[in-house]
């Protein structure tokens, strides 16, 4: 399935969000299909109430979920993403707020891949900063790693402090 023209809503950040969106879309499809069966071929003129993520998904991709074809496109694309979407796992010391993770996910989608799924985790030992796991690499942008990189400066600072104490 082609990826061109499709994009994910900002609310759908992680694989879990994607699966929730997919389940909602499938549920909507089931609901509409059953409604069409019950109303003897008359289609619904107003869609049922959906989540912001689903509405944004439809708006961003110019899909009308009242049409079975658009729903199927949406489901197929989400299916495809659930398997083939690029993924990353980012960890922080504390649970990030929704706006924060949305901002970070936005950066990834703007600069790395617009369809990237970003899972979040908690690692208290990070203290400050974050770590990033991909399928192949582990990137450590924590304060600990920053200290390790700046070890010479730290040693120099400690030595100066020691000299100052002695004098």
């Amino acid at each position, binding site marked *: 399935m082609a990826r061109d023209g499709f994009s994910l809503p900002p609310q759908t950040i992680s694989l879990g969000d994607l699966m929730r969106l997919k389940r909602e879309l499938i549920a909507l499809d089931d609901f509409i299909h059953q409604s069409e069966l019950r109303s003897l071929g008359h289609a619904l003129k107003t869609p049922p109430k959906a989540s912001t993520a689903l509405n944004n998904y439809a708006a961003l991709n110019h899909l009308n979920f009242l049409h079975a074809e658009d729903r199927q496109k949406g489901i197929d694309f989400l299916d495809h993403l659930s398997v083939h979407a690029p993924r990353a796992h980012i960890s922080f010391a504390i649970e990030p707020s929704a706006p924060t993770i949305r901002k970070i996910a936005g950066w990834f989608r703007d*600069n790395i891949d617009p369809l990237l799924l970003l899972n979040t985790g908690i690692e208290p030992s990070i203290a400050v900063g974050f770590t990033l796991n991909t*399928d192949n690499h582990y990137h450590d942008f924590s304060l600990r790693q920053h*200290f390790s990189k700046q070890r010479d400066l730290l040693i120099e600072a400690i030595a100066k402090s020691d000299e100052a104490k002695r004098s």
Partner: protein
Amino acid sequence: MTFWWLVVILITLGAVGVALVWLIAKLSQIGATNTKRNVNQIIDAANNDVEHIFNDQFREELRNRGRLHFERIIGENAMFLQQDLRLTTSELNEYLKQELGKSLREEFAKYEQSITDAKQMAIDSIEKTKQTIEEQRAELSQKLNEEVEAEKQRSINRFEANMADIINHYVLAAIGQQIDLSDQMEYILSELEANKQAISEDIRHGA
């Protein structure tokens, strides 16, 4: 003439000499005979009068005199012997003193030499022991310093190796969860931006 006169004189002189010798010999013989006769007479007289001269009183007197004389001689000899003995004893004492002193001095010299040698040996031994102890102390000190330096270096290396974790631990303990992620957003985005290329290649190509 002269010769004959001379012979006559010599003959005369010879005859005179022979006559003188004969006369002297004759006189001498007569004198000896008289002397012998006198001596015999005297001996006989003495023998006859000995009992009159050496009576008991005289004998006792002689005995007393002899005893006194003998005692005096004995006394003198005893005195001389005593003096000799004293002198000998004194000389012997002096000799013994000298010999003993000499022997003692020699023995003391030997003893002193032995003591000096023993003292020197003891001093040498002490010096060697002291030197050995000093060397061992220096060696131990050096080893201790090396160990201390090595331990210090190990501690420094351990500290440096784990410095980031240590400081991170203290920072974490100090700040806890007080730093909100929104405060870190600038840092997070700047780190992402700085490593954008690597992250992008990693995610897209799995490099």
